[in-house]
């Protein structure tokens, strides 16, 4: 499913034996099994084989699984794609995408793998990580590159380096990239994800950062440690007041739809049918945080 709640996408080192069994217990919306940065050069083959076995045997209780493959400038990505598709991952995260053709090239390989391993063609989603100034400049084109593309993610480490910028806690150095990416994603109708927060102990900055990207329109954030999940989900959880308001909007609009009235007043504010999507998203988020048990969604 291309569009769903994805507040947190948690990276997991595929090579580490002790980690594979239970990432889902921490409640991320999505797990990303990493074959790229977390895996040492000499262990790429081993990690890939473990990835396949994990996909085949581990039960993640329905939590979505993506695989971060190695970059298109490495000798590994083709076999990574075969193993990921054969194992039946939900999607592939392509690192260091610079242009639309990168995504399309991976798509060709995914199609071939889907056919080879008897997977339904089109069943493997793609997402692109944007890690350079060029990638950010091409964001809209990349977002429109493939029907399989579920979303795009900013990856700040490489971006900041190639910008000759400096990583800070206030995030000025990535503000333009964030703006551009979320804008492009929304324009193209795909999801947008923020970069990881690497200082695990700095909870305050993580909170502030997450509030910022939430308000900017991002759907979620990549995560490197399970401890960050609850903090991020918390930020994305609507307040009781917001939930009630959303409920009233939906009920009022549904009722009036039959009468053919498109605009009305709820809680003293004008609302129109265009707001129904936002209201439903509020309830989806509330439901994901166990704050909504109603039947409107």
């Amino acid at each position: 499913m291309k569009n769903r709640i994805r507040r947190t996408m948690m990276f997991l080192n595929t090579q580490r034996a002790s980690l594979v069994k239970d990432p889902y217990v921490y409640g991320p919306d999505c797990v990303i099994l990493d074959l790229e940065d977390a895996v040492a050069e000499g262990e790429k083959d081993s990690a890939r084989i473990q990835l396949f076995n994990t996909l085949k045997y581990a039960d993640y209780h329905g939590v979505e699984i993506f695989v971060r493959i190695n970059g298109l400038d490495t000798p590994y990505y083709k076999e990574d794609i075969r193993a990921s598709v054969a194992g039946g991952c939900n999607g592939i995260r392509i690192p260091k995408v610079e242009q639309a053709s990168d995504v399309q090239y991976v798509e060709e390989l995914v199609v071939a793998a889907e056919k080879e391993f008897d997977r339904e063609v089109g069943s493997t989603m793609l997402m692109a990580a944007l890690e350079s100034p060029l990638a950010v400049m091409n964001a809209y084109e990349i977002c429109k590159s493939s029907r399989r593309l579920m979303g795009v993610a900013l990856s700040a480490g490489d971006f900041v380096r190639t910008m000759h910028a400096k990583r800070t806690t206030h995030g000025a150095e990535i503000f333009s990239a964030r703006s551009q990416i979320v804008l492009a994603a929304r324009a193209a109708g795909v999801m947008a994800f923020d970069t990881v927060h690497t200082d695990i102990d700095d909870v305050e900055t993580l909170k502030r950062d997450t509030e910022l990207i939430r308000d900017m329109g991002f759907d979620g954030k990549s995560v490197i440690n399970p401890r960050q999940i609850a903090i991020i989900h918390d930020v994305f959880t609507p307040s009781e007041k917001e939930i009630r308001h959303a409920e009233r909007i939906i009920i009022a609009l549904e009722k009036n739809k039959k009468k053919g009235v498109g605009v009305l007043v709820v809680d003293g504010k004008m609302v129109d049918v265009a707001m129904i999507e936002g209201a439903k998203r509020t309830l989806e988020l509330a439901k994901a945080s166990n704050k909504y048990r109603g039947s409107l969604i």
Partner: protein
Amino acid sequence: MINKAGRDIPEEFLKEDQEGFQGQYYRNHYEYKKAAPRVKGAVGPQKSKLVKNIKEAVEKCGLKDGMCISFHHHFRNGDYIVSMVMEVIHDLGIKDLTLCASSLGAAQSSIVPYIEDGTIIGISSSGVRDEIGRAISSGKLKNPAIIRSHGGRVRAVEAGDIHIDVAFIGAPTSDAFGNARGKGGKSDCGVLAYSVVDSRYADKVVVITDTLVDTPNFPASIQGVDVDYVVKVDEIGDPRRIASGVLRMTQDPRELYIAELATKCLVATEYFEDGFTFQTGGGGAPLAVTRFLKPYMDEKNIKMGWALGGITQPMVELMKEGYIKALLDCQSFDMASVESVNTNSRHFEISTSQYANPLNKGAFVNQLDFVILGALEVDLDFNVNVVQGSDGIIQGAPGGHVDTAAGSKVSIIVAPLVRSRIPTIRDRVTSVTTPGESVDIVVTEYGVAINPARQDLIHSLSSTDIPLRTIEELRNEAYALVGEPRDIEFENQVVALVEYRDGTIIDVIRRPKGLE
């Protein structure tokens, strides 16, 4: 007989007063006459109780074949006392001894050859870890070892189930008359709680110190009036291993997640109110619980009445910040707690009898609201094993596990669902240390199981977002991950008895098949 914990206790171990386990409060109001030591009065003027060395002390005490000697484990992994004393005794050719220790671990591995050559034929201890655990498990000890909880050990001594002939008490400081403390000197261990009972119930008491101080060394944990001889040695232990500098706060996401869940459980109960009382062990998850309590106490605007047991830095800090009104310390785990018990007037040293003896007139464990405990195995009846490892070898210690689980209003077990491939939650524990009726809540990273006997807790917790599971569901989840474990195979030979805190036998431990 099959005892109340469902374990088969061979008849040969059930004779006279020795009963099988009959339920956690079976011996409530049990009447008994306390044992008493046989002592020699020191009537005339005395200059000092100092003797030249350990050998002279052993000889003057009249230690003979077949006697029982005792030690404490406040020096933990840095202890030199057991090794020093046992070497002397061995060289004197004394045999058939029983060791009544509060715990034994890696620091005492040097006694393994003495088990093999018959110098030591019996052991009563809480923990028997590492090589000693292996030696006992393989049947090298002539008599089955007796595993006793901290409270159970004091009870056994006071009730006369075990009689200590000579107690050897390592002390960081002592004066020449044997007034001894855990404080000061170069090997500071904070308190001497385990030894108090030894000093009062042993026929002969020897204090061994590396720091002689002026009389009076007050306030003294060990009273000079109970002490026969004092020995000064160069070093009683390795200070760096006695108290860990700092117990590192765990960064392990699994442990932290479990700790968070446990904290949520605790605060969701009706007992989380102003003046609540609390104990936790020194493991990663339990330590984190202490830290996680703070915001919940803020939110409810309440304070902790007292914290009990092994004391650690997070508790000391909470007390300094005004969140805890008193600390009751029977073991100082780290430098911060040693320092605090020396200086903070609300940080009290208590004896192990005050801490946990089930047959005195009310130990502090019985006033606990909450205790957070670990487990190697938990079974479908909520029985807990903390003694026997996955290979059947004795490698753990009940410590105060049994005592606090029975005494507290809410006992919370924190454990990962599986450790490497070994499932923690399983059909049946290898041996029972703490009976399921004492265990209220089991917290794993896969969810929380509440003992069905505690409907009140189920009621309190079901309105929260804590993921509640049945213990069977947790077991199923564990087996789905790792496969169903095969039962460990054992020989018939019983190598250890697990004694319940009240003196009944809760289980026996046999020799794992093929273990030499």
